[in-house]
């Protein structure tokens, strides 16, 4: 490609694909990862809901998924993803693998966000006779709001990075564009433009995330 007018339609399409993949994956990452992170935290806390075997099992599962190289994860879950979305390529198909990778990452980040909540506050809540669900909704989540917002930011950025690899299953997206045109076809213009676009996206996500998390703290 030698000029922008040729590149633009491709880039536009890639942006939409990236947006779609990120939206689906972060949605599931939060939907499943948040309760999973909560469960990871409360099942190891002596004052909350300590169940060692459950905590060990969940931790083990999370670690296994997290230790898969993403490309291998995509291939490994291909049959499952095909069955689930009734397709074998495209951004929605790629989102299955992205979600599966993002859930344990986000769960761990949520778990460690809770570590910043002072034990004393939890203790005071227990002493006040509060049930565990109330401690989760009214103590853990509000107290960790800032770092959970940061965890969402970090997860979105990780999903964007993973999504470049999702090209192997036709996921598309900006990262895939950079690899296919820029890297394999030595198309310098595409390479430079897509990388710049990626840098800008990541910056915007980070800024937005910081802005929201600072507001969460100030109230």
């Amino acid at each position: 490609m030698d000029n922008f007018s040729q590149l633009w339609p491709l880039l536009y399409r890639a942006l939409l694909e990236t947006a779609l993949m990120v939206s689906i994956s972060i949605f599931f990452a939060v939907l499943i990862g948040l309760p999973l992170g909560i469960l990871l935290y409360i099942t190891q806390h002596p004052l909350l809901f300590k169940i060692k075997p459950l905590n060990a099992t969940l931790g083990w599962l999370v670690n296994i998924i997290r230790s898969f190289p993403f490309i291998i994860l995509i291939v490994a879950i291909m049959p499952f993803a095909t069955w689930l979305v009734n397709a074998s390529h495209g951004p929605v198909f790629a989102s299955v693998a992205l979600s599966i990778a993002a859930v344990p990452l986000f769960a761990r980040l949520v778990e460690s966000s809770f570590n910043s909540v002072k034990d004393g506050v939890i203790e005071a809540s227990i002493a006040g006779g509060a049930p565990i669900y109330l401690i989760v909704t009214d103590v853990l989540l509000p107290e960790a709001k800032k770092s959970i917002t940061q965890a969402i930011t970090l997860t979105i950025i990780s999903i964007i990075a993973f999504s470049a690899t999702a090209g192997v299953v036709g996921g598309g997206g900006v990262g895939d564009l950079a690899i296919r045109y820029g890297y394999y076809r030595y198309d310098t213009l595409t390479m430079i433009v897509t990388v710049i676009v990626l840098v800008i996206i990541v910056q915007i996500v980070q800024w937005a995330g910081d802005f929201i998390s600072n507001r969460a703290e100030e109230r």
Partner: protein
Amino acid sequence: MSIQLNNVSKTYHLKGRNVEALKPTSLKVETGEIFGLIGYSGAGKSTLVRLINLLEKPSTGTVTVGDDNLTELSSKDLRIRRQKIGMIFQQFNLIESKTVYENIEFVLKASKYNKKDVPARIEELLNLVGLNDKSSINAANLSGGQKQRVGIARALANNPDILLCDEATSALDPDTTKSILNLLKSINRTLGITIVIITHEMEVIKEIADRVGVMSAGEIIEIGDTYNVFSHPKEEITKDFVQEIYNFEVPSQIKETPENQVITIQFLSENAEENYLNQLYRDFELSISILNGRIEYIKEKPLGFLMFQVSGKVEEIERLKTHIDNSHGIERVGYIG
């Protein structure tokens, strides 16, 4: 409501090492009293109060509050029972991301307090602790004293019959400490709530405690009416605590000999110290010079100490000592100085 600990002990297991934080202890705290526990760091005070609401599970023994044996309750019943045992902490332990109002609302939610009565209840509590104008302020933005007031309001929200205080004033300056102690005292009087307060500060005990226990190395080594314990301390550690408030030391330049002695006496009531001294000056052929003197009020009862140096004939000094020992309400103390 009374609290009864029966042979309660607590041993922590740390990497194959056992720490006996509380040796088997029996203790009864009577309904409506303010019971103080004093001891140095690591004595086991926090362990003991945290055993009362079972924040720590006892290794042995039973904990009875009122008619309920807490150690036998199911975890759900224990949770409900805890709503009637308030607790306040050294570090206040408020939900910092929430407002004063929401902090109190939290424990009312926990007890499923009738929703439409919640605002009125919170206002009542804020009035009680003197924070009516702070309702919508974030807990993070309060001063230490104000945070502890919110802590107290939160602890009282569900009308407990017991209030446990773990070093509730240790993070506060002396003036704020006084005002918090006064608040606790008035809560005890007006609401009849039994209070257990633990501290390493004598000031707190003498201000507020009806009875005191002195803790050391996981044991209550001395216990009794606060005034009696402080006027007649038996154990070394208790004597150290008394020393701490009177802050008496024999000046180092004084060389004690049989003809030149330092005597410390204590006045057990409002016995006018002036008159007594004048009498000593008049009746004994000794040179008497005062080194130190101080009256402290223990639960509003005065306990005075006077330290003086006497020099003269050995027999005359002996006669003076006998005279003191026969005086009503006045005692020589050996351990001070």
